[in-house]
């Protein structure tokens, strides 16, 4: 979700004037060499911590799922604790007799090999393969929605800033603020309720699922059209949920960029308004938004869960809810990890992009010297 007030957007823009990466570098001082090393180190640290958290959640907590499973098995099949434990071992893919540290290390070891264990429900299928089959759908819908909202939101924010205090500005800003305050899933429900059921404008039953049954997957236009059809509602919801943030942030950033001295000088130089808007105001205003994009990418994966539920869209979110209801712990674990990895990658990409776009970051020295 992207709850943002106009002034908050402005505050965020100011704190995000530098990329998250450079902020990390600033904190750690001269200890680290190139920024890319830091980023990768941070990535590994995050994965490590996340996997530890899931390990603790699943194994160590009182009333842990493992214990519950053992109880279940004992009751279901009337077997002894030892036998149930053995079965649980197989299910969870861990050696319950080994000391806890060893279990932890084995778990980590498996992770390094990309082995996330097997799903409880479908014993033969690995968690990794399940996730890989559903994750692309989520990424597709989320990615498209986010990107579209970014592009449109930036354009609207720029225009709103240029026409400050006009009717357009007030409409766009207030509209953006309202839409971004309402949780995404409520918007989804409203769409289904109002446009789908009450007004019957949208054939929602047909739009369930990621693609229509019977269609052969492939790169044919028919298939692509079909998945777009099915993904259109989730994409619309992601679009609407985030557009407010981009509009308000870009508006703030543009207003700040317009105040900069170099813009005045550019006007004095007789540059055309178009050139000033794109290369002088626009490029500088968009910079902090790139960092915000990364943060939004992280948040959106979570919000996708409910939206997929509502639209019955077979992405990773829908699977997560199913796995929770079915107590498929390895799958739950795996989903947490994989989605975190996605967020990490998004952050890395955003940081790289930012350092490419802002020459003030990462270029050492230069032609200084009096």
């Amino acid at each position, binding site marked *: 979700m992207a709850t943002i007030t106009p002034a908050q957007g402005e505050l965020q823009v100011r704190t995000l004037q530098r990329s998250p990466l450079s902020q990390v570098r600033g904190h750690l001082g001269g200890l680290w060499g190139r920024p890319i090393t830091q980023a990768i180190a941070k990535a590994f640290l995050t994965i490590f911590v996340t996997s530890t958290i899931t390990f603790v959640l699943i194994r160590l907590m009182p009333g842990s799922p493992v214990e519950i499973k053992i109880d279940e098995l004992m009751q279901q099949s009337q077997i002894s604790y030892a036998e149930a434990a053995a079965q649980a071992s197989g299910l969870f893919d861990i050696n319950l007799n080994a000391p806890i540290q060893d279990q932890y290390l084995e778990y980590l070891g498996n992770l390094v090999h990309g082995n996330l264990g097997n799903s409880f429900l479908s014993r033969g299928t690995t968690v990794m393969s399940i996730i890989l089959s559903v994750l692309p759908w989520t990424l597709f819908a989320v990615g498209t929605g986010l990107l579209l909202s970014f592009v449109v939101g930036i354009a609207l924010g720029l225009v709103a800033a240029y026409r400050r205090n006009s009717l357009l500005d007030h409409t766009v800003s207030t509209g953006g603020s309202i839409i971004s305050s309402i949780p995404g899933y409520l918007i989804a429900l409203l769409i289904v309720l109002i446009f789908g059921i009450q007004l019957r404008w949208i054939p929602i039953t047909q739009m369930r699922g990621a693609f229509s049954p019977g269609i052969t997957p492939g790169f044919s236009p028919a298939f692509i059209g079909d998945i777009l059809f099915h993904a259109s509602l989730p994409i619309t919801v992601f679009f609407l949920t985030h557009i407010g943030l981009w509009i308000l942030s870009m508006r703030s950033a543009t207003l700040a960029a317009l105040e900069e*001295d170099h813009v005045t000088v*550019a006007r*004095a*130089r007789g*540059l055309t308004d178009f050139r000033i808007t794109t290369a002088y105001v626009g490029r*500088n205003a968009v910079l902090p938004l790139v960092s915000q994009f990364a943060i939004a990418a992280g948040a959106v994966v979570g919000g996708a869960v409910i939206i997929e539920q509502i639209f019955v869209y077979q992405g990773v979110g829908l699977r997560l809810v199913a796995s929770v209801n079915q107590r498929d712990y390895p799958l739950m674990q795996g989903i947490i990890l994989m989605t975190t990895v996605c967020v990490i990658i998004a952050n890395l990409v955003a940081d790289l992009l930012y350092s490419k776009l802002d020459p003030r970051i990462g270029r050492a020295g230069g*032609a*200084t010297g009096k």
Partner: protein
Amino acid sequence: MPVLSVRDLSIEYRTRRGPVQAVRDVTFDLEQGETIAIIGESGSGKTTLAVGLIRLSPRSARITKGEIRYDDGKRAFDVLSLDSERLRRFRWADCAMVFQAALSAFNPVITIWEQFLDTGRAHGMGDKHKVHDRTRELLDLVHLDPKRVLSAYPHELSGGMRQRVLIAMALLLDPRIVILDEPTTALDILTQRAIIDLLRELRGRLGFSTIFISHDLSIAAELADRMLTMYAGRVVERASVDDLFYRPRHPYSVGLMRAVPRVSGALGSVVSIPGSPPDLIRLPPGCSYYPRCPFHVERCLEEDPPLMQVDTPDHEAACIRWEAVAAALGSDAEAPVAEKLA
């Protein structure tokens, strides 16, 4: 034929408390090849005037009356009457402005070369090579290495280098007029010296006319032919450099001269002007310098005096008591700043 004739230019700002008369009835001529320095305290309206000449005032400012007549021999027009496209072409090509904060005068995300190219392209120089040649030429003139500078980003250059680049860029289109607003204020003293020498050299070579805004009298004295003193938005004295330094006739000019410490002077010789500038929203009647003026009389409150000729035809001051001022100064062996210039 003066290249720039400003008549009765008045600029006001909208503020919450009311309109601020930042520039009032400013009139002066700029001859071909001449350098005029405009001096005064902060808040006197100097920068507002400079920015107003190319109509780059912020949105809250309005030019309420006046005329800015530009005449380079081939074309003549009133700058205030130009539409936005013609104004855009006028800027930089006919009249360029070197700003005070060269530190942030450049777009931080594109290279110096691209900014030169932008400038050239905006004014019809379509051929990249021509722009490149001219840019290299100018960078040489300002004593910078084109190879190092052009591929750099603004933050990679020092303050002094950026100021030079800005000066070079200002001359890209061979303007008739260059306005310099406190071009050396943000720089250290050695760089200041270098920039001033550079400006003198360029002026000699390329022959443009200059309007130089400064609160630093010594620099103004070095570069200017004639000087304007501004106070509370009005021009209060118009004179040649010599006349202003040796024979100031407006009490404010006198005060300014006295406020500059002499190199050789005794410690007690610096006298600052007591009081502060008037509120430009609610101007008191009569001469706006009245409260701080050591020469004031009752009659000064009656009306704001216009510029009147003093001593010679080329020397004007807006003071009805100028003769008293002259008399008071006559007994002073040297004018305060004369020594510094020797």
